[in-house]
Structures are given as C-alpha cells and as structure tokens.
C-alpha cells in the first residue's frame, strides 16, 4: 500500500478545450484548438448517424431558427437534419414567405425572431458581414451558413473532416483549390482553415476570377490548373457561374472546361491517392468531368454525410450547454 497525498492520477478533466466563441461566424476568428474540437466532436456525431435510431436528446427543448435569405437546398437540409438528430426544435424562415419580401430589414427580422427566444440562429445571407452584425446585436448563438462572398465556415469544417478521415491529417498536405475563387466563400473559408492547420494551399483559376492581393494569404496562386494539380493530395473544385455579379470572368463554359476543367487526364497529374472534392452543386462538364466526379477518388458524397455530423458538432458546442455554472 503506497501513501499518496497528492492528486490521484488521471483525474478526468471533463472539459479540456472549450469552444472559444459564442458564435461561429467565420474561420478567421476561431483557433486551431476550436477547429480540432469541432472535428473531434463531429467524429462522435458521425457514429450517431450510423445508428438505427439516429437521434439523441441533447438539444431537446432548444430552438434553432434557420434564416435562409439565399436559396439553398443542401445546406438547409443538412442543418435541419443536424438539428433534428439532436432533438432540437427547428424552424425555417426563408426569404419567400417572410416579411423580408415586404422590405423588412435583416435586423428587424432577427429581432422579431428573438421574441421567440431561439437558442441559435443559422443564417445564410447574400451580404458579406450580415452574421457579424447579428452576432453583435443578438444574445443567441449565430451560425454562419454562408454570407455573400465572405465565408462558409461549416463547409470548410466538413471539408476538413473529410480530408482528415481520408488522409489521417491536415498538416503538410498539398491542397489545390480551383475555380471561381473571387466569388467563392467556400474557397475563403477553406483557405483560412487549411492554412491555420498547416496545409499548403494552391489557388487556381482564370486571372479574372482571382481576388486582388490574394497572395497575401500565403497561398500559392496560379492560372494554370496543371501547375496547381501537380502532386496534390487533395483537389477541391469550385463551381463556376458565368452570370455571377457584373460581367463574366470567362467567355464560355466550353472554354472553361478546355482550359480549367478537371478531366481524367488532368486528375492524373495529382498524386495517385489524391481525393477529389466539390462543395456542390456541380456543373458537370464545366468545372469537372462526370467521370472524375463519379470516380473512385471522389469523396463528394462523403462531404455531404460529414456535413450533418459537423453541423451537429457545431450546434452541440455552441448551445449544448446553456447554464452559467
């Protein structure tokens, strides 16, 4: 029998790192530890999504309001499923039916919602910076589901989870992000997250679709897709859209495919075990060839699956506990 007057070994610490913010408005303001916490928590959430009864009572009695001012099926569905799997009450407020179409401002809409005391608001809005305003003005947790061309943090998190599951890590990977970078909030969030976690990112697209001074992020930038794909571990293809905001950046879909499309030949420039990702929805035959999108390296469907787990994790971390201790 040994006497041990000090702390018994391995006293379980219930909480090591705690999510550092009240909201998730962008990747820029969260830390590496926050990101790791979300990914680890999402792994546990994935297990729930494999069960027969895909439900836990954790957010029972909590109200989450989904404010979508831009049409979106997949992101909205993903959030709604996540909310319901955690047993939260979920209400959707979309542009068409609400008083917004009568000219009510975002802030007024949100303040009216606050009267129903939601624990969290999930917001997708065409104006960059919209969730930041709400986060400042409202006491509940704000989750950014995409603001203008600024950020889409849960997308980057689910992409990171997908990459980590396929490759075992994020640090040191070579990631190519190709497409309309200038108008892509997915690209910005992914660039931010992957850089924070030590991956090497190369951005690629026509010059007209690369944002000004983007090299200051530390990413490599090229207008040749062959260069971006060279020895890449992860290939992330972005959607391009000819009619996006004020003048097309490229002359035709046909030309885009010829110069920038991810064809099977181009895919071979990346590493043999590289994975191919796309946030969806895809323009088959424009930015990506169907053969590659449906091919064995494509993890596009897993991205969707991981999306629910990541969103469950985010909601759990933001509003799972709600006391003041």
């Amino acid at each position, binding site marked *: 029998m040994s006497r041990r007057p000090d702390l018994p070994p391995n006293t379980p610490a219930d909480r090591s790192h705690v999510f550092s913010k009240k909201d998730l408005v962008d990747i*820029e303001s969260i830390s590496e530890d926050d990101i790791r916490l979300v990914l680890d928590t999402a792994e546990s959430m994935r297990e729930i999504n494999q069960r027969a009864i895909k439900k836990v009572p954790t957010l029972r009695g909590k109200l989450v309001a989904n404010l979508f001012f831009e049409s979106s099926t997949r992101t909205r569905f993903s959030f709604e499923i996540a909310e319901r799997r955690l047993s939260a009450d979920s209400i959707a407020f979309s542009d068409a039916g609400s008083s917004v179409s009568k000219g009510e401002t*975002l802030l007024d809409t949100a303040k009216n919602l606050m009267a129903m005391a939601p624990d969290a608001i999930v917001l997708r809005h065409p104006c*960059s910076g*919209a969730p930041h305003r709400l986060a400042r003005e409202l006491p509940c947790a704000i989750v950014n589901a995409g603001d203008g061309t600024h950020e889409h943090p849960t997308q980057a998190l689910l992409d990171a989870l997908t990459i980590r599951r396929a490759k075992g890590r994020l640090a040191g990977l070579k990631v190519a992000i190709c497409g309309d970078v200038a108008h892509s909030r997915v690209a910005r969030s992914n660039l931010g997250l992957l850089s924070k976690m030590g991956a090497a990112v190369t951005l690629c697209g026509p010059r007209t679709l690369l944002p000004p001074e983007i090299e200051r992020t530390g990413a490599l930038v090229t207008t040749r897709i062959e260069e971006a794909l060279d020895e890449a571990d992860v290939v992330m293809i972005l959607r391009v859209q000819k009619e996006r905001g004020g003048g097309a950046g490229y002359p035709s879909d046909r030309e885009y495919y010829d110069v920038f499309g991810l064809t099977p030949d181009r895919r071979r420039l990346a590493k043999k075990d590289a994975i191919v990702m796309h946030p969806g929805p895809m323009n088959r035959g424009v930015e990506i060839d169907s053969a590659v999108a449906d091919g064995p390296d494509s993890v596009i469907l897993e991205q969707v699956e991981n999306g629910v787990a990541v969103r469950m994790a985010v909601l759990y971390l933001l509003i799972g506990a709600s006391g003041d201790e």
Partner: protein
Amino acid sequence: MSDVPVLIRGGRVVDPSRRLDQTLDVLLRDGFVAAVAEKIAPPKGAEIVDAAGLVVAPGFVDLHVHLREPGFEQKETIATGTAAAAAGGFTAVCAMANTDPVADDAPTVAFVVRRARETGRVRVHPIGAISKGLKGEELAEIGSMKAEGIVAVSDDGKGVQNAGLMRRAMEYAGMFDLPVVIHAEDSGLAMGGVMNEGWVSTRLGLAGQPAAAESVMVARDVQIAALASARLHVAHVSTRASLEAIRGARRHGVDVTCEATPHHLALTDEEVARSGYDTRFKMNPPLRSEVDRLALVAALADGTIDCVATDHAPHHADEKALEFADAPFGVIGLETALPVLVEALLSPKHLSLMRLVEVLSTAPARLFGLPYGTLAEGAHGDVVLFSTTRSTHVTPDGFHSKARNSPWVTRTLKGRVERTWVAGREVFSRGPGGAKP
C-alpha cells in the same frame, strides 16, 4: 447685419490671405471686420470675447456639402445642415445639386437660395448640375442657373461617363466662368464596388472599386480640360494615382484644382475590417490604402491639394442600418472637420497651423471666387474661434446635423471649435451647458 460690435481679444490671429500669424484683437462691426490690431479699445456696448489661448481665423468655407433639401429632408435640411456647419466653424458652404428635384434649372436653384436665406444659419452657395437630372446625357440650364447664383457645376454623386458631354460641359460652363467640379468614377471599373479594392476587400468578401476607377477619370478629364481650355476642380481626391495625374496636368498648364476630405486624410480601408463591416466607414470614393492616404497628406502639405472639403453626406439612421453592401454611401463631416485635421495632421506636425487655416478657409474661397477667407479690414465679419488643445468628444447626441453617420462617433479628437460668427453675428457658441445655442 449685426446688432452689436464684437471685440475678439487676445487671440492668435491666423490669416493666410496676408500670411498673418500674431496675437491681436479683432473688431467686428456692422457685419464686417472693422479692425485687426493690438489692443483695440472696445467701442461702447461691444461684446468682449476673451480669446486667450485660442486661434482666431477667417470662417471656414466648405466647397462640398449635401444639404439634402429639397427632397431628402429626412436626412437633413438647409436649417440643420447649416447649424452643423456653424458648429464646425464653417461660415459658408456650397450645396451640391443631387437633391430631389435635381438642381438642374433656375427655379430649383432659386428655391435653395430662398430657403437658405430663410432658414440657413450660415451662407449657402448652390452648385448646379452639369447634366439634366444628373443623367449624364444632356447639358443642364447652366446659364439660367448662373443667374440664380450657382458658383460651380457638378454631377457629384455620380461621374460623367460620356467624354463628349464632359467636353461640352466644360466649354459651356467656361462661358459663365464656372468651374466644373468632377466626381471622378468610371462606372465600368468601379463595377458596383462598395469599398476600396484590395487586400481588405478580399478578406472581407466585399466587392471593391480599384483606385484606378478614380484616377482614369481624373486623367481623362484633365485632358478634356486642356482641350476645352476650361477650369476643372476634382472633388474628394482619394488616390496617389489621381494626384500624379493632377501634377502632370499642371505641368502642362491645365487649370486644375482639387480638394480632399478629412476622412480620406485620416482613415484607411482597414477601418471597415476593424469595425466589423460598420457602414459608418462606407462612402464614395471609399477609404483607400495607407499608401494613398500618406500621399494625400503629403500633397495637402505641399500644395498639390488646394483645400479641404468635407463632402458632408447625411443619411437617415435606418438607411445606414442595412448590411454593408446595401447601405448608401456617405458620412457627415462638418462638425468634425477641424478636430480631425488637428488630431491627424496638426498635432503630428504634418501641417502647419497657417496651412491648416488656409486649406479650410482662404484657399476654398479663392478657388470658387468667393469673398471670404480673409480677415483684412472691410472683409465680411465671418470668423471662427477655435482651440488646438481642447478636445472634442464625438457622441451621437452631440450633433447639430439631423444625421449621425459619422466615422468618429465615440472618439475623442484634439481640437475644438469654440465660436462662430457670420456677418458679425454669433451663429454658434460652445456654451458651458453644451454646444447647442
């Protein structure tokens, strides 16, 4: 017409029109400057103002304000806008034409003149539109407007895209000796940008307008001015490239002058990021990079920039409470112009006191041929008394303007306007109980 003589005693009189910087007394009588000398004996019944430790200067002149009346009275009226001017030390302002209806004909200009006479606290000189309705297609009735008293023409708010129209406007306005004030913005390059295009706009995911959207128009219009032998004034210059175009044009003898705003001299596009998309930092032209800002400061000191003008642009709080991309452009500036210049330029010694007063009063008056900006005997009794040591704490309730959209709210700035006189009559006094007289 003043009622009572005013003796402003013992202040530091700074009069750039005579390069005067000396402790003197100033006597105002019957609406004019009666004497500027040492130890003036006070006439009977005169009000004596102790100006020890303060600066006495000719009343400031703002070549670029938006008074919003007629048509946008919810944002500002001539009454409230001129009250703001008085609180800022401005004794004369030039009102831009983008009202509703647009000031593109004589009756509208006459309305503004009349309203100013009835309700204005300081002198108001209207600016007429270049084109009908500001549409940039046909010339406005510049001649008739001149008869009603416009001092310049401008489509400010928008840039004139059609070079042919700009040439005709310069030739036509030149006949009436009116300077053409340009808002330099190429709409194709600006392309709906809501802030400066650069690293900050990329980080924030906001559409940006590049510096070139302004400078290509400056470059174009100085050449058209050369062609038309016209007088050109560039409003709110904000980029280094524009300054280079102006310098180049002057070397070739083009009669081009320009102004800069206090916010462009003091702030950069980083403010949009730092403030978290706050629309109090959204205006057109937008806040630019630090490189541009430093170029503006140097240019103001070396004379490339002739004067400061606020581009006072009031908006209702509801309008500015929208998301950054949706909110209207514009910030107010009449009441903070002096403190901003003292804080950002005078204190760090980028500008001398003489130059500061010059760019606020003597220079702008001279540019538009207005009889102000001087304290010579016989000049109009328009005087401002200010401190370069006392502070102004900017609060939303402290404004005389109807609007609150100022980038300076909650900041404390060195420099404070104490009193303002127009035609020898006091129009503003920072009384002990607060500013509103």
